[in-house]
């Protein structure tokens, strides 16, 4: 394996990623739930009808992605990844301190920048920040860090490092007032923003983000490619009154303000449940997929500027022409409308085109919606349209799915799949796609407090074109990961990678060989090749 500093001529003319193949390679997954050691179930009554997330990160420095799965009313379960490279997926339960109850979901975030991953736990009740102590153990840090856990029904999270800050800004989305038996509708409780305390480690008193419209997903994302992330929220119209989807303008030192119609923000009222972003068309601006009930949405800027001007936050829906509405089960006899939750863009066949996973599952015996609602794996073709392949791929589970994470758990270069179901055991599949393309995976590191470079953009270019991914902490449905950023590169033998570190301009391009892991340390002059330890 070798690293090269640059690839000549490769970038002379780059455009959107284009796969060479006429038809997408059909991904193939093998379910290894029973043999993997993953055996937890997200369960609980009404207050757990939403939620059911997982956090995936490396807790012990071996590079492998470890897994925390929310348990709802039961304690969460933490699993250390014991897989070997290219082998079967294997995990063992580990008492970590994260075994708290009432957990709806969780996200990894190195809050204090000590290089050891911490975890933000969302709960029905007080949220908790758990400080990583090393060796996969964690301890409550609310008091030490001034984190106000509240007493809400928390269902969304996002984090960013605002420019100039050495401590993260965390947004928490809260659902309805769970004490309201007769009047639950219209009782969305305030979302909150916890910014750094000036001049000291820890959080300042929280700021309410109101009006609050019961978000089920949040994402700090640089939607306008400005170098600064704003806060998008997918809001559940079931519970808000006078609400809509929202995006907050977050600027350091300034109060958050909502984007409005005057700014160009377009009115959209759906059962917003999950959010994911990816620049699918290579224009430098991300598309956003939003899950809902019945039709799901894929938004793109209505008028992307061609002259470098700032775009208006006006999005249009391209879900249907792109083939991602996924509005009802695509297989089986149950043709009632679908209910969609977690969503994520990952390239599951390594053809250089991002694919789309959607977790599906009835809220709770709602007979107007499908009860046998298979998850979707929408594989992108070279025409930019997506083709349903979950059944062919072997991942069309009809359990009542909620959250999940797509990650390469066994370092074979193929993105595996973990899905958290409600009231039935979580499931995990190993990706064994024959004929899959090549890949590269990078992990970012930078000096200072935002060690994992949340908010960075990573660009990979090959002869097939250019792919760009934002490093985020948030989105999906109460599920998140921190670690390796995966790119399929099709038949390319090498790729050029560069990073736009948070708050900075694009950095220098480096060449990577195909099928290579590399750690991109901002302080280093060249990427560091990395090899799995087993």
């Amino acid at each position, binding site marked *: 394996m070798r690293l090269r500093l640059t690839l000549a001529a490769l970038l002379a003319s780059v455009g959107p990623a284009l796969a060479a193949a006429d038809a997408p390679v059909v991904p193939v997954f093998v379910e290894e739930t029973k043999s993997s050691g993953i055996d937890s179930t997200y369960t609980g009554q*009404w207050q757990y*009808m939403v939620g059911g997330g997982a956090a995936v990160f490396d807790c012990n420095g071996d590079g492998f992605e470890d897994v925390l799965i929310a348990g709802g009313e039961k304690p969460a379960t933490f699993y250390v990844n014991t897989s070997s490279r290219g082998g079967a997926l294997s995990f063992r339960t580990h008492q970590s301190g994260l075994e708290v109850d009432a957990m709806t979901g969780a996200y990894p975030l190195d809050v204090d920048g000590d290089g050891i991953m911490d975890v933000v736990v969302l709960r029905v009740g007080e949220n908790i920040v758990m400080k990583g102590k090393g060796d996969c153990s964690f301890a409550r840090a609310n008091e030490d860090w001034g984190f106000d856990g509240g007493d809400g029904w928390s269902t969304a999270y996002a984090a960013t490092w605002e420019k100039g800050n050495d401590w993260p800004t965390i947004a928490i989305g809260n659902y*309805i007032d769970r004490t309201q*038996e*007769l009047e*639950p*509708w*219209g009782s969305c409780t305030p979302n909150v923003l916890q910014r750094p305390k000036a001049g000291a480690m820890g959080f300042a008193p929280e700021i309410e983000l109101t009006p609050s419209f019961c978000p089920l997903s949040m994402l700090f994302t640089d939607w306008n490619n400005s170098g600064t992330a704003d806060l998008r929220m997918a809001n559940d*119209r*079931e*519970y808000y*009154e*006078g609400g809509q989807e929202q995006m907050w303008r977050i600027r350091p030192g300034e109060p958050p303000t909502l984007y409005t119609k005057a700014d160009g923000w377009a009115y959209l*009222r759906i059962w917003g449940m999950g959010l994911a972003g990816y620049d699918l068309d290579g224009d430098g601006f991300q598309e956003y997929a939003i899950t809902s*009930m*019945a*039709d799901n949405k894929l938004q793109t800027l209505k008028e992307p500027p061609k002259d470098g001007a700032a775009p208006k936050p006006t999005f249009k*829906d391209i*879900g*249907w022409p792109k083939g991602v*509405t996924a*509005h*009802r089960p695509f297989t089986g006899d149950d*043709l*009632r*409308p679908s209910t969609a939750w977690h969503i994520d863009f990952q390239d599951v066949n390594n053809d250089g085109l991002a694919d789309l996973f959607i977790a599906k599952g009835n*809220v*709770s*015996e*709602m*007979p*107007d*919606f499908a009860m046998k609602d298979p998850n979707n794996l929408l594989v992108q073709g070279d025409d930019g349209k997506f083709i349903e392949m979950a059944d062919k791929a072997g991942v069309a589970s009809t359990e009542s799915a909620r959250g999940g994470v797509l990650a390469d758990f066994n370092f074979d270069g193929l993105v595996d799949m973990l899905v958290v179901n409600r009231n039935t055991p979580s499931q995990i599949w190993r990706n064994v796609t024959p004929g899959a393309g090549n890949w590269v995976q990078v992990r970012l590191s930078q000096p200072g407090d935002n060690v994992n470079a949340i908010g960075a953009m990573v660009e990979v270019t090959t002869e097939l074109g250019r792919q760009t991914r934002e490093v985020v902490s948030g989105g999906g449905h109460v599920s998140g990961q921190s670690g390796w950023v995966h790119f399929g590169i099709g038949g390319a033998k090498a790729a050029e990678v560069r990073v736009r570190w948070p708050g900075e301009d694009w950095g220098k391009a480096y060449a990577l060989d195909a099928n290579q892991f590399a750690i991109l340390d901002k302080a280093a002059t060249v990427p560091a090749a990395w090899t799995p330890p087993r």
Partner: protein
Amino acid sequence: MSINRRRALQLGGAAALIGLTGGPARAEDTDQEAVGGQILRQWYKVVLRLVRHTATYSPPVASRAFAYLGVAAYQAVASGSTSLVSLAGQLNGLKALPPRDPAKRYSDAVITHCVMASAVKSFFGNTGPTGQRVMAAAEKKLKGDATMGLPADVVEASLAYGEVLKAAIIDWSMDDGGAVIENMGFPMAYDVPKEPGRWAPTSAIRQQQFPLLPTWGENRTFAMPSGATCGLPPPPAYSEDPASGFYGEAKEVYDVTRSLTPEQTAIARFWSDDPMLSPTPPGHWMFIANSILEDEKAGLDKTAEVMMRLGVAMADAFIGCWNAKYQYDLVRPVTYIKKVIDPKWEPLLITPPFPEYPSGHSTQSAAAAAVLTFIFGESYAFTDRTHERDGLGVRSFASFTAAADEAGMSRMYGGIHFRAAIEQGLAQGRCIAQHTIALRTRSST
């Protein structure tokens, strides 16, 4: 109210309860009447929430539920009343309902509560987990309010009779053509005609590529003979000729919507009444009526009669309107204007996924207004607070007719209806309402 009631019971003794079969009118009767009215209105508040939060409840489906619930509540009272007349034989398909047992004592309020609790569970059994939780909590609370201080035999007999009556109403409802709603009312297959002037899908939502409830106009009506009873003349003949009447109507929508005043915009949004984001158009009028009855502290008799008449009128209005909609199958303004006048034009409101002519909101608003005018009078001024919690403010009207007219015009401001659909819709609604107004509810009428 519970305290007053307890006080009344203390004064009059447990045996002297209002609504007891054959019992004379006395002070406690008034109390019972008031309690019953409050309980019924509380149930309607729950129902309006459930309509908003149950996915199958498009406006026609909501109107149907309002009609059956209204009849159920009305019959709960009429079954023991010497002044209210049963609707059996007056409403299509409604045969004699089970009578009360003369040997038992009953409470109208408890029967009404039971009928509503049980019927609401039937009509909204498909709601989500939060709705289920609300129904259970409401039943528990309102049962407690209704039965407080009553003798056990009265409570037991009343609850049992309520269940029997509810079962009869549900049985009556099952074969009207509207009992089963699949795919949120959108057919799984439908031949969408391609000729110019016919309805075409207006959104990129996959579920809405076929029109909503295309056979609803064939449903059994309640008080009028059939869905075709108040038929309409055809709309202006379709034409793309700028000199044509049809073009003129489209141009009017285009011009009006391009220069909306703030007041017109507010009107459009106020009457938008989108399914799943509001109690729907019929729910809007139920909210108005419920609020007026609340303000008037109306008793159970009047509350039940008003809500029955209003529900029946609007249900018939939707059947009649849908009958005409699928008879004429007319294109929506957004389709025509984009094709013929301005491809970049966008209406203020989301265009509903079904044919244009006539305007459903106009038909049902006119029907509702006619019924409420019949009950409350020509110049009954009121303030409409339906959407206050949604941030749309309140609007005040000098009469129900004025409100209905505004509701009709709101559809032009919203860019979703031509003038003919509004004017003919209002006329159709007034016609349909006469069949509800003709129902005999009082023994003296």
